[in-house]
């Protein structure tokens, strides 16, 4: 009985949160969109494994389809067509990720894209959105009422590990300096971005305040992604952020890349890396060119945020396990 009350309560709270979020964006003129979660196309990303399934038709034959890891590929198409600012609440799927208290292979994501916004504008929009849409029972929660921290990744790494990313641009030097701080040997030849992730996960993620929103901005440019690079001295970094609350990584944001040549080059590199890491492994390899880069020929300047709503619900209900906010926890 107790369990039934708890489950019904979670279902109700999720509904309230979603309608608050919809009201927030609707009242600001965003258009809610619904994009496919079953798709013939994928963005090639070596670090994300996808679920694939087989489309079958007696007349058309069969072909592989994918459950999307995020609605980005479709939302960006709508933006290129002139949809303006949009948002979507959708189911997403990620395969081959570790199971645990913060991960489920099927989860719900909120994505919102704001035209003519920088990633900095998205910080204040996100803080406003979280505060205004909070469940009544969560309004007093410290992660919402405390002053958020906004700091660059370089400052955070320097503060918590003593390593200066501005100086440690060389792969070998960075590896050696990181090994001086860590105890497990880093394999030689490990790329810069993996060394960075070791340092960041070990020293920064574990040390940040848990009672408030913490935005890490300006990620190293070595981490290849579709966020714009900074200008001048800032070009070593990309204009993106991730926000943490209560030790959970809650959302990320890019100032979206708009140059079709840069996007094309990105996909070439990502696809090569994907092939290298997956050939012979039996894991999903999407076809090489979904024509996705073409939509960037006339892509407006905008900023996009992706937020895990199961994690937000965890924070707002004080749950430490994602399975506590799912009516049907994933089990296999």
């Amino acid at each position: 009985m107790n369990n039934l009350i708890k489950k019904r309560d979670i279902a109700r709270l999720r509904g309230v949160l979603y309608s608050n979020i919809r009201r927030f964006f609707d009242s600001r003129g965003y258009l809610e969109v619904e994009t496919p979660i079953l798709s013939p196309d994928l963005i090639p990303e070596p670090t994300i494994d996808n679920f694939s399934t087989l489309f079958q038709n007696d007349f058309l034959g069969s072909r592989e389809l994918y459950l999307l890891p995020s609605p980005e590929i479709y939302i960006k198409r709508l933006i290129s067509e002139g949809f303006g600012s949009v948002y979507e609440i959708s189911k997403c799927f990620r395969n081959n990720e570790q199971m645990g208290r913060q991960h489920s292979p099927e989860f719900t994501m909120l994505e919102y894209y704001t035209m003519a916004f920088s990633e900095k504008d998205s910080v204040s929009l996100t803080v406003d959105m979280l505060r205004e849409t909070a469940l009544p029972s969560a309004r007093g929660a410290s992660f919402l009422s405390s002053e958020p921290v906004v700091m660059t990744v370089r400052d955070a790494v320097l503060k918590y590990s003593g390593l200066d990313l501005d100086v440690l641009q060389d792969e070998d030097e960075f590896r050696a300096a990181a090994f001086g701080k860590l105890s497990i040997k880093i394999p030689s030849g490990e790329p810069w971005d993996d060394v960075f992730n070791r340092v960041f996960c070990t020293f920064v993620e574990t040390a940040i305040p848990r009672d408030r929103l913490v935005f890490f901005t300006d990620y190293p440019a070595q981490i290849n992604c579709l966020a714009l690079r900074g200008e001048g001295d800032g070009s070593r970094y990309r204009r993106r952020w991730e926000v943490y609350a209560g030790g959970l990584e809650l959302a990320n944001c890019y100032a979206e890349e708009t140059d079709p040549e840069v996007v094309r080059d990105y996909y070439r590199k990502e696809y090569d890396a994907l092939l290298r890491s997956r050939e012979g492994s039996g894991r999903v390899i999407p076809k090489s060119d979904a024509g996705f880069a073409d939509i960037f020929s006339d892509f407006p300047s905008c900023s996009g945020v992706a937020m895990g709503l199961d994690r937000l619900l965890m924070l707002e209900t004080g749950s430490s396990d994602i399975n506590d906010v799912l009516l049907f926890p994933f089990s296999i």
Partner: protein
Amino acid sequence: MIKAGQIDKGMGLLIKGAPFVVVEREFVNPGKGSAFVRLKLKSPTTGQTLQETIKSQDSVEDIEVVDRNYQYSYNDGEYFHMMDEASYEDVSVPMKTFEGYEFIMREGDSYRCTTYNDEIIDIQVPSKMVYLVADAEEAIKGDTVQGATKFVTTETGLRVRVPIFIKQGEKIRVNTETREYLERVND
């Protein structure tokens, strides 16, 4: 050698030549990057703790550990004295090794311990244990607020916050990890 993905809580790892016990393990997937396993490790001899993040494909040197049963005899403020239940041999374990358990463990109880090179490096304490309430404050008269609590001390010296109806001489079940009162136990 052991793959990062197979590392679990309570396992022993050799870090720069010294044995460490895994006290926490968490999977992390940075936004754009390989999958990692974040570990919190503790040295059984010095009590020193380490944070470490390893890639899921990394291999780490694990150590051959053996689990054995020991009876907890007493502690002298510096060492826990544990008796090997097979050989009746007395083994002393630095207080740091069982840090945080000094008021959880009960003299005379049997515990499964992890040993490395015949030295105890970790202890497996049941997640719930029943204790005798050795000392309880009198409930304050007139305090009828629902959910009111007070502190009691168990026979092992553990201070626990309990509902006010718990009296000296009664038994209570306690979560040994959070040290929280779970329920009154009636014999």
